[in-house]
């Protein structure tokens, strides 16, 4: 190609204590190109992004941006050069409004330096409308769902008029409608000559939007594919160096109902939900972001207050007023946001594994049996194949897939009857994802009743014995395995949807 690359990295290396995160990586992106960057977790994608944006300093190598040799020492420097970054972890300020976040540090001014709030709000809402979401610019970020926050983050980045936009897993919490809007936006950026680096685990999405794909594995660049020769299995093979089967839910006999919800309503938006989950069954809970699925899970687990309805376990009514009641009654919940709701990041693997059963492994003086703790943690490390150098490692140092396994270990150790998993494979690499699906299938086979919330259609279609669809807090459809159709699920999921309405839950 004759065109000069917009950004070029030569033999860039980065090592952290004990880990070679990047080794002699060459990387280039051309003007007006959408580049897909794929690889398993730990392959070095995020590190690469963070070196470009100046969060990390490289150890070796050179970077050229727009023909100049650059060495960004902070995210601020890369922004000043015209590089906008959307990080995997959201970087919004919860107590500020949407528009204040979007225009943070470059607020439009009126006379005497006062902030022009009206202009700020109008521009923000225009950008968001471009993305296909309708969120009021005045709402506080902390009141939005994670998906909406993600859209705000994207709006913030694209409003900077950058030459290069780096997106590290922007779609992991978006619904398919929102993903479509984001892709349209990426194409429009491309038309304007802006380059986009798109990191994602959802390979089918990568194929839909990019021009070229760079595959990484273990800190190396292992290959480059143009869109025309790329397909999913080729990418997966390059990423993991082996073939992986996805969604292997095996048929198991379905038993009597374990969990039954009758007319459940709550102040968090859930309205009159009836639902049964049987022994050995995986019920997929589908719907758009904000349909009230996580909220339903919170009601079942006692995290939010239920205003009406009863919960039956094994046919008997149970009182669930707080999460402790739910744990006692055999309900486990692997939450969507594992870092905030699932794990105590500073604690180690064994401490997280036993967090919900501390009392059961303590003697009558309250002393925790460190021996049973080690035994239980070792057991789950083996059965769930948690990859770690030791059980005393703080979970914050584990990869997403292994963190998720620790959350799962925590709940399995309580010997639950019902497991609710909320977006179980979000932000997890392909290999771990397949492992996780196999695991859920095995657990169902052992008689666990599983309620699986997922926004990934292939996951819903592949894993569920039955799919229940929610929209605006209500159940709007139910499909058995064998009569599943993506179109019908989507129709149910948008049944009450008023297109003018906010895409988040009305509270």
């Amino acid at each position: 190609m004759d065109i000069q690359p917009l950004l070029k990295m030569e033999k860039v290396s980065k090592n952290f204590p004990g880990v070679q995160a990047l080794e002699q990586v060459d990387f280039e992106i051309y003007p007006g190109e959408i580049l897909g960057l794929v690889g398993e977790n730990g392959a070095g994608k995020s590190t690469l992004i963070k070196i470009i944006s100046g969060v990390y300093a490289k150890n070796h190598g050179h970077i050229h941006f727009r023909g100049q040799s650059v060495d960004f020492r902070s995210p601020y420097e890369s922004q000043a050069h015209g590089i906008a970054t959307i990080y995997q972890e959201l970087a919004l300020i919860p107590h500020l409004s949407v528009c204040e976040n979007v225009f943070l540090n470059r607020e439009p001014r009126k006379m005497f330096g006062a902030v022009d709030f009206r202009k700020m709000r109008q521009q923000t809402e225009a950008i968001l409308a471009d993305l296909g979401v309708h969120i009021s610019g005045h709402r506080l970020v902390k009141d939005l769902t994670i998906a909406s926050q993600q859209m705000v983050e994207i709006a913030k980045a694209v409003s900077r008029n950058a030459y290069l936009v780096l997106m590290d897993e922007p779609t992991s919490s978006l619904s398919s409608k929102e993903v479509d809007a984001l892709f349209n936006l990426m194409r429009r950026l491309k038309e304007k000559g802006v380059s986009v680096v798109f990191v994602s685990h959802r390979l089918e999405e990568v194929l839909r939007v990019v021009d070229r794909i760079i595959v990484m594995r273990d800190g190396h660049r292992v290959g480059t594919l143009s869109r025309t020769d790329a397909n999913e299995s080729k990418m997966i093979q390059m990423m993991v160096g082996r073939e992986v089967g996805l969604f292997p839910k095996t048929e198991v006999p379905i038993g009597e109902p374990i969990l039954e919800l009758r007319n459940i309503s709550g102040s968090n938006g859930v309205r009159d939900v009836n639902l049964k989950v049987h022994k050995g069954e995986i019920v997929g809970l589908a719907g758009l972001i904000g349909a009230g699925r996580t909220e339903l899970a919170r009601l079942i687990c006692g995290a939010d207050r239920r205003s009406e309805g009863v919960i039956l376990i094994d046919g008997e009514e149970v009182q669930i007023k707080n999460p402790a009641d739910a744990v006692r009654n055999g309900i486990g919940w692997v939450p969507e946001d594992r870092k905030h709701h699932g794990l105590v990041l500073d604690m180690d693997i064994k401490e997280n594994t036993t967090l919900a059963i501390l009392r059961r492994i303590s003697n009558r003086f309250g002393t925790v049996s460190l021996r049973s703790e080690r035994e239980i943690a070792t057991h789950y490390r083996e059965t769930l194949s948690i990859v770690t150098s030791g059980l005393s490692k703080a979970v914050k140092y584990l990869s997403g897939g292994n963190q998720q396994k620790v959350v799962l270990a925590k709940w399995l150790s309580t010997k639950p009857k019902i497991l609710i998993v909320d977006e179980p494979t979000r932000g997890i690499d392909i290999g771990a994802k397949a492992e996780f699906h196999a695991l859920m299938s095995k657990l169902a086979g052992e008689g666990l009743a599983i309620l699986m919330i997922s926004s990934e259609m292939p996951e819903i279609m592949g894993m569920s014995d039955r799919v229940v669809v929610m929209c605006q807090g209500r159940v709007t459809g139910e499909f058995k395995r064998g009569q599943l159709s993506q179109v019908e699920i989507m129709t149910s999921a948008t049944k009450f949807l008023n297109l003018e309405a906010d895409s988040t839950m009305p509270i």
Partner: protein
Amino acid sequence: MEKNTNIRSTESAKTFQPEESETLRQTIRRSLAVPQVVLFFIVIALLVIGGIINPRFLGVDNMKIVTRDIAILAIAAIGVGFPILTGGIDLSVGSVVGLGGVIVAYCMMNLLLPVWLSIILTLILALILGTFHGLFVTKLKMHGFLITLVTLGLARGFILVLTNAFPITGLPREFNTIGQGYVANLIPVPLVICVVIAMLAYYLLRFTYIGRQIYATGSNVDAARLSGVNVDARIILCYIFSVVCATIVGMIQAARLSIGHPAAGEGYELLAIAACILGGVSLMGGQGNIFGILVGAALIGTVQNAMVMLNINPYWHKIVISLVLLVAITLDYARRRRESMNR
């Protein structure tokens, strides 16, 4: 799949070896990476230097004073460490120290109650006050800073009303033992009380499920609650512990001077909180241990005593203590920054 198992086996082999065959040198190196251990050596160094400049500093008489001072501060610091571990704070320590001393003196001298009953009544009062703090923090979701700030003023005011700002003097001799007495003519009684409290607190935090749940609550209250931890009960317990410890300090100080003094404990919350911070207790909650708090208290106690022994103008004492705190937290922040950059 095969690749995964390989990684696991080699990794576990790597970590198991050093655990078993760690050389002395590695052990020293690893412990020097813990700031509290370094602090501990600084305390020792201070004692040695002080002893060289003024030999009386290391004499038995002065050591009795130093260890008693340190013990009293350590009790208050251990107490306030608990709310800090949950991510809260207790600002009422100083006023509660004063209140504890005055109440116990009032019970004995004005109500003419026996010593043991006065002590128990004072502790019950502490229990109620701590519960009150804890309920505000958990049920009203109020930050500990606010409710204990109210008590800071309220308790001091109550002391003044109760005593008319006059000290209650002439406390019974058997009561004074807890502040002035010695075990075997050598070990100050407050030091014994401190050791008992420290061991209890250490055991609670390190070995019981309650301690584990306190750390979990301080690190990530949502994850703890969703795992079925009775978060509210743990937080309330921590606030109770803080007030009870401060009350015990109040009684010891009253016994030491044989006076229930209305101004006792003024500003003591700063020393107690400083000891925790020096000892590595994170104000964000979830991090810190009893050993660190003890070392922090020892450092402050030693520096204060050294300044007396070296005839440093008392007006400078506060400045020196604050500068020690500034240096320690600056170094600690620099270290954390370095760690997060490397990660």
